[in-house]
């Protein structure tokens, strides 16, 4: 059985994944890589939600709510990805670059 797995495993793993994604968002230059790192952070949140839904002592409706919430997170992530890809393609067409430090039209 899988009784040796505990909530703390999931929490620490999600924390590590979130930190790696945060590093990617802050440190990479390519907008596409920043997008991938945001996906990593969203996945870290999902791991945490699933871990809580499976291992924390609570009523059944709350457990189901955890799973439903993960479905919503995945949906919104897909919508966000579609829009972000559209913005990246538009930026590439206008500026012929997807490096975020070269896109400074909004800099005051």
């Amino acid at each position: 059985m899988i009784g040796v797995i505990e909530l703390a495993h999931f929490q620490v793993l999600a924390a590590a994944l979130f930190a790696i994604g945060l590093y990617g968002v802050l440190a990479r230059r390519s907008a596409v890589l920043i997008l991938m790192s945001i996906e990593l952070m969203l996945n870290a949140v999902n791991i945490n939600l699933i871990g809580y839904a499976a291992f924390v002592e609570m009523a059944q409706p709350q457990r189901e709510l955890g799973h439903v919430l993960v479905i919503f997170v995945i949906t919104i992530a897909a919508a966000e990805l579609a829009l972000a890809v559209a913005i990246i393609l538009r930026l590439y067409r206008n500026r012929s670059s997807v490096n975020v430090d070269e896109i400074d039209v909004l800099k005051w």
Partner: protein
Amino acid sequence: MFYVAGALTLGGALGVVISRNIVYAAFALFVSLLGVAGLFLLAVAEFLALVQVLIYGGAIVIVILFTLMLTRIQDFQHLSDNPQWPAAAVVAIAIFGLLVASVVFTEVRTTQSQRIGFESMSETLFRNWAVPFEVASLVLLVALIGAVVMVREDGDRRD
């Protein structure tokens, strides 16, 4: 099993943020997302593992690869990082430490892993959360139409 899935997840994630070649980074993202699906399986969430593989593995990685194809291809081999990357590493490690500390110092009453069946989950989704579900589908529709409008050549809109 947990450690295998966790190693896949974290290794893939490190590949995403460290790799110099952006196509390798995309495939590392795929590996990481498959690892997350394995973690969902270990937390007895089979449906979500399936959704994870289909949506993330099937759709999102493909969309990202298409984005790479449509943007400049000669930059793929030598990615560079922001000059602020040491600060980014410090911030990431600090956040990790903060999260682990909050995990350690928070008391949560845990149980054995509880399984959520397909039936009960779908009943909750379509009975109690039907309106948010419809709103989410509307959000998805608006986002996709907005994406299409945004990338369209605007030759036909000039007066």
